[in-house]
């Protein structure tokens, strides 16, 4: 592991003496679920040191910052000044660089697209040199890097267009849907009326109740939406404290029976008619960040996620996937369903127009690897794909079908990293970057 503190150090490592440490992979906060930021037998370049704020342009509403800065820090900086991140994942403990490498999507994808749509510029230090790239200049390098899983170079800084907000509160509508059909129609109805929308699906409900879910849809609250006593400081923001799960459960607490009972309670508790509520930003966007190491609930082997997208029109595949999952009695806490808008420009960017479903996958459950292999085929046949940032076990042979721009990406990558020194366990496992480079270091 090396931890450069500034761009000059990154350049020294990546451009001038790449041979000194064999193959390597950049890492942010390590929130990718699988092995995207791991590099067995090689070196991890810890980018968290590149965390300076380089400029907040309040006229244009843009922010320039080091790629190692966390969304947690950015929120503390931005929210009180009346800005929000244009796209945020379900955790605020990611870095800007990691978010770019995954071309992350949020609950607003159907309206705003993925993160790359909001980037004016990024600086890429690749073995072949340093590039200032964006949607216009060095567009190919830009498109290969957004969603490029850290395999095109180290992103050292980026300029982001921000979303102006009037308050640090959300107006959240909650309602439940009795089955998949009603859930999908609620998600597609006036899809753009809410900026943020997502459905939490009971992954264990079967038969007539398949796909029963609780929808939360929201917009940023305007100052006038707030109660009078809050209007004086509408933008006050304090990151909630993190409570640790104190021990790793020796057995998984999340067994089908426990989860089933939990899901039932959770569904019953949700309002059957639409209800409106004000919620602080963090409660709406980062419900899981309140509990540190919450994955410990899954027992000693931990878990990963499975997230896929299938195009609109492939609802049957979605239903089929839910049937397989609920039939497999996979103790998945809850699955998250939402609709994506149009795909962005990133060659390996995950989002595409359609339905996306994400669920937790406890590792070590008998029969689960085979079940997921079946889902891979189902998804690929439907013209969809699996999210690489959350993957630990995808069938490698399906990657070219799921990511049809793979060859295009590989060509740009080969120019940026001719010797093939940038690698990761994910890249090796899926053969993303072509043949494997033997390790040079013992």
């Amino acid at each position, binding site marked *: 592991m090396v931890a450069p503190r500034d761009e000059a150090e990154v350049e020294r490592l990546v451009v001038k003496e790449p041979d000194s440490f064999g193959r390597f992979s950049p890492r942010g906060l390590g929130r990718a679920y*699988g092995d995207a930021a791991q590099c*067995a*037998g090689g070196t991890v370049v810890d980018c968290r040191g590149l965390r300076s704020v380089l400029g907040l342009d309040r006229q244009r509403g843009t922010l320039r910052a080091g790629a190692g800065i966390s969304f947690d820090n950015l929120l503390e900086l931005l929210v009180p000044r009346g800005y929000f991140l244009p796209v945020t994942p379900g955790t605020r403990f990611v870095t800007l660089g990691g978010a770019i490498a995954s071309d992350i999507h949020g609950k607003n994808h159907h309206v705003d697209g993925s993160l790359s749509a909001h980037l004016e510029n990024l600086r890429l230090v690749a073995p072949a040199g340093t590039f200032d790239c964006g949607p216009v200049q060095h567009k190919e390098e830009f498109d290969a890097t957004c969603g490029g899983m850290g395999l095109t170079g180290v992103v050292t800084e980026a300029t982001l267009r921000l979303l102006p907000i009037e308050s640090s509160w959300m107006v959240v509508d909650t309602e439940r849907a009795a089955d998949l059909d009603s859930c999908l129609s609620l998600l597609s109805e006036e899809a753009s009326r809410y900026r943020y929308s997502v459905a939490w699906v009971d992954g264990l409900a079967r038969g007539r109740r398949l796909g029963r879910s609780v929808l939360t849809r929201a917009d940023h609250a305007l100052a006038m939406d707030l109660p009078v006593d809050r209007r004086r400081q509408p933008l006050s923001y304090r990151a909630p404290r993190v409570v640790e799960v104190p021990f790793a459960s020796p057995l998984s607490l999340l067994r089908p029976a426990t989860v089933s009972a939990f899901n039932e309670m959770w569904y019953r508790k949700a309002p059957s008619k639409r209800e409106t509520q004000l919620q602080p930003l963090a409660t709406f966007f980062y419900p899981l960040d309140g509990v540190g190491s919450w994955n410990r609930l899954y027992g000693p082997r931990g878990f990963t996620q499975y997230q896929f997208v299938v195009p609109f029109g492939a609802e049957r595949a979605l239903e089929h996937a839910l049937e397989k999952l609920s039939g497999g009695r996979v103790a998945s806490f809850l699955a998250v369903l939402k609709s994506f808008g149009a795909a962005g420009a990133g060659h390996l960017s995950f989002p595409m127009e359609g339905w996306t479903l994400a669920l937790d996958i406890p590792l070590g459950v008998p029969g689960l690897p085979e079940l997921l292999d079946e889902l891979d085929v189902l998804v690929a046949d439907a013209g969809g794909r699996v999210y690489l940032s959350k*993957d*630990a076990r995808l069938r490698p042979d399906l990657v070219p079908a799921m990511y049809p721009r793979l060859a295009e990406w590989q060509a740009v990558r080969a120019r940026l990293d001719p010797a093939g020194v940038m690698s990761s366990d994910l890249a090796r496992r899926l053969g993303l970057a072509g043949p494997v480079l033997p390790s040079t270091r013992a």
Partner: protein
Amino acid sequence: MLDGTGMPQSAVVIGGASDMARDVLRILAGRRLRSVVLAGRSEPALDVVGRELRALGVESVRCRTLDVTAVASLVPFVSEAVADLGEVDLVLVAAGQLGTATLEQLGPGTISSLVATNFSGPAALAMEFAKHMVRQGFGRIVLFSSVAGVRTRKSNFVYGAAKAGLDGFALGLSGALEGTGVGITVVRPGFVTTKMTAGMKPAIFPVDAETVAKAVVRSLETGREVVWVPPQLRYLFALLRLVPTPLWRRLPG
């Protein structure tokens, strides 16, 4: 590269024509396996397994003759296998020989050959592959022990003693590899109905090779270090270890 469910894309299998190895390979071929080096004493027997694996979709299969008792050939074999595969995700050592426990037949040559086949050969191979895997930063080595080694008995005590040695070696190596990303699995099957035991009277809880293979694959998924097949043997042997010696020697089988 091993995936998050412990499934290998590349494997070296020593004793590649054994029933248990073959059944493990069949399952892995349906998952992620793409390239294999099969090693064993009989090339034709390996070829049969190789053909089946190719038919099951494994892209690259190489068969190499290897006698695990030929000490000088072990290091070159490991280098070749590493060169063949690049990355070695999984090594499975299924070589083994029951041999004899008839006193008249047990001369120095027989004893050292049984120890080499069941213990020192597999141990040396595991060691060489472990060093390579530590450099690559990941990997898993599966070694076949046996309940015969948990408490030796007159009917197969040389075999049992050698397996006891291998079992202890493997657990020690596993401890030494902690933190390197390389894992060891010790499989302790009971009576397995295979070529090796054909014609013998089955002991308590007999299992077939396929059951053992499924348990091995399952252990790759869970990362378990010690695998008893069938699992009940773990509890049975916890008791059998306590049986007083005179009684133990009188137990049938």
